[in-house]
């Protein structure tokens, strides 16, 4: 029998129910990403996934990166730099408390920096602290840091996730229970699945709009697509399958943010392995590569071509793509000059991301067209780190270098691509001792030209930072100036 009243009641209930879900979602968010952190101490591991969860949300440093990549005040509200540029005096914010209730003061800063630069430190970026000769506590809220020589990037260095301030009381358990000063407190970590944070009601700065945050880890691109489509997750940062982005863009439920990263995606070349030690051969490889085909074919159009190891959105960037334009005929000529008119065979070892696997197939085809045969092998990250990064047992590989301002790696002859140019090394030493912005910028430009002219690696494209989010989420970072998912300014639109 048909009962209209029951039907109406049921309908009303459904409306209330859905409104209820809508309301509770206003302050909760689920953010998904591909990689899960190995542990939760950003000061003792290179894994970017740690910073992706904790930077700015849980841990803060003296200075910090803003969403545009600029360096602003963090736990230090102001600082003075001595006339000779070697002494930094930081004035700390007052009333800052760690999540365990203890207050953050100058002793914590001294502890953190001394720990990071110590002989037995496991910090992944020890170079950031190498110039520090002394850290002294002036009073509870003032810290004086002395450097061996002026360092133009010291404030920038202190903004890194590896330089965040930790407390001696909580350091023992930091890998599983991180205690910082940030706007969110760590709640729970279900390994293999998710990390939960919640709002820190004692936060010193502006209180975040979000109450509960869940980071979910979904490594499989197909599962990532399904999770977003089903709206199981509200945000997916660095979405792993660029081919799916047009679909999200066309769907009014979602927004796609396309920004820049610090990820220079390069065809890394073993500069010590014959015949790749010959600059003519490397130049031939550079001219054999059609960047646009790689961006279109591997990244479905997402990415910016680069001609050197530098981020295109940086004001000091020089566009050197013309230096290695796509010219297979020139490439063949260069190979002949180098004595390889018949071509040669080398290895191409590819880590898992799709830019490498797909980009590798495209590059293999482009190299084959000029006579260079490549033996492709697909490696998992652990194997790649072992064979390529540490073992230097490779000819070519494709990888994205995501650290900001990392042109300095070319001054390390033992780095995995083994570029050894004393001229470049002295330029970098000079750069590190220079603080004047104008001089720094011309030195950086000189450095970019130098590695481009030496064809150290094949420079492909700057990785795009693509975030898929519910169309009602506001305040997400569009760009990724450092590895971070800063949720302090994120909110839901009504």
């Amino acid at each position, binding site marked *: 029998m048909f009962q209209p009243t029951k039907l109406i009641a049921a309908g009303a209930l459904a409306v209330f129910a859905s409104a209820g879900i809508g309301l509770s979602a206003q302050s909760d968010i689920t953010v998904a990403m591909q990689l899960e952190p190995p542990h939760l101490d950003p000061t003792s591991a290179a894994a970017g996934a740690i910073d992706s969860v904790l930077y700015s949300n849980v841990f803060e440093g003296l200075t910090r990166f803003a969403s545009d990549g600029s360096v602003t005040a963090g736990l230090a509200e102001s600082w003075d730099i001595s006339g000779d540029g070697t002494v930094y005096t930081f004035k700390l914010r007052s009333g800052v408390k760690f999540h365990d209730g203890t207050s953050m003061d100058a002793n914590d800063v001294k502890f953190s920096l001394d720990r990071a630069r110590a002989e037995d430190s496991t910090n992944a970026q020890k170079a950031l602290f190498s110039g520090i000769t002394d850290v002294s506590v002036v009073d509870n809220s003032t810290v004086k840091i002395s450097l061996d020589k002026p360092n133009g990037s010291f404030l920038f260095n202190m903004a890194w996730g590896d330089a965040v301030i930790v407390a001696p009381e909580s350091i023992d358990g930091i890998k599983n229970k991180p205690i910082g000063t940030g706007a969110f407190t760590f709640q729970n970590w279900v390994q293999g699945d998710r990390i939960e944070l919640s709002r820190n009601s004692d936060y010193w700065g502006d209180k975040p709009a979000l109450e509960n945050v869940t980071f979910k880890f979904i490594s499989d*691109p*197909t599962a990532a*697509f399904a999770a977003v489509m089903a709206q199981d997750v509200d945000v997916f940062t660095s979405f792993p*399958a660029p*081919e*799916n982005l*047009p*679909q999200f863009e066309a769907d009014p439920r979602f927004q796609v943010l396309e920004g820049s990263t610090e990820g220079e995606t390069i065809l890394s070349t073993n500069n010590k392995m014959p015949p790749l030690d010959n600059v003519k051969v490397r130049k031939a490889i550079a001219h054999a590569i059609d960047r646009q*085909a790689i961006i*279109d*074919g591997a990244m479905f159009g997402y990415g910016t071509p680069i001609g050197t190891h530098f981020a295109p959105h940086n004001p000091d960037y020089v566009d050197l793509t013309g230096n290695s334009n796509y010219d297979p005929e020139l490439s063949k000529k260069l190979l002949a000059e180098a004595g390889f008119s018949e071509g040669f065979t080398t290895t191409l070892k590819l880590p898992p991301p799709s830019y490498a696997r*797909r980009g*590798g*197939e*495209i590059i*293999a*085809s*482009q190299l*084959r*067209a000029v006579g260079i045969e490549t033996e*492709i*092998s*697909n490696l998992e990250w652990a194997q790649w780190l072992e064979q390529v990064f540490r073992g230097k047992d490779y000819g070519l590989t494709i990888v994205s270098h995501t650290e900001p301002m990392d042109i300095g790696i070319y001054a390390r002859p033992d780095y995995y691509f083994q570029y050894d140019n004393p001229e470049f090394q002295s330029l970098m030493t000079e750069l590190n001792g220079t603080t004047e912005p104008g001089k720094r910028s011309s030195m950086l430009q000189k450095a970019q030209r130098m590695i481009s002219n030496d064809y150290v690696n094949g420079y492909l494209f700057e990785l795009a930072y693509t975030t898929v989010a519910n169309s009602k989420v506001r305040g997400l970072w569009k760009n990724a100036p450092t590895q971070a998912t800063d949720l302090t300014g994120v909110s839901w639109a009504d």
Partner: protein
Amino acid sequence: MKNGSLIFGALLSVLVIIAAGVSFLWVPFDITQLSIPDKLQTPNKIHWLGTDHFGRDILSMIMIGARTSLAVALLAVGIGFSIGVPLGLAAAARKNSLIDEVIMRTNDLIFAFPSLVIAILITALFGAGAMNAIIAIGIFNIPVFARVSRGAALSLWQKEFILAARVSGKSDFLISAEHILPNIANLLIVQGTIQFSLGILAEAGLSYVGLGTQPPIPSWGRMLADAQTMVSFAPHLAIIPGTAIIVTVLGLNLMGDGLRDILDPRVRKSRE
């Protein structure tokens, strides 16, 4: 029709074999040259089965992929056959001896592992690639052939004509080679056909997880894996290699069933 499945299965198998054979001489497009601007076309007049995400012609990929599948499966079954059958015959000739025990218990050990797990173990240890995939699939074919040939040979050893051969002084080796083997050949052919189709599935599975044939050599399994994230907007990328695998495996299985009906004396007897 009595042999309907045999004829249908043989037709499908021959189709695949022809596609593989023709690919040696001619394919519609050169798949080593990628053409990104032509990517993700649906089937049309120029590209009969469309193009993939690199703009490669899918028909050409399928044809060369057939070659890969057949070659890997054939070699793998070859390994299983040439090692498994002698082992099985030896075990049967020395029934209940130490040799029999060692051979058959080792077989049981290999058999106890799911075949794909062995394959993954081998390729993980020795690296991914077509050769290691062949060895991996071959190894789990050994116990299959060993068991089949031992079982069939055991009953033959009881027969009078074998007894006659023994009385006349023939060695066990010669008896196995000259009298037992020809009499179990039918059975082995049927088993070989079925193992062949399993080999094709295994190759596709290994390539799907990235442990089989490496790029740029096309493989149906890897085509499926590549298509995975694109199914929502380019379903033909997955449907076409999926269909190719189904057709081949179905064809070989039907053919195997049909052959068994004709060749296997046990089945033949029960039907008569």
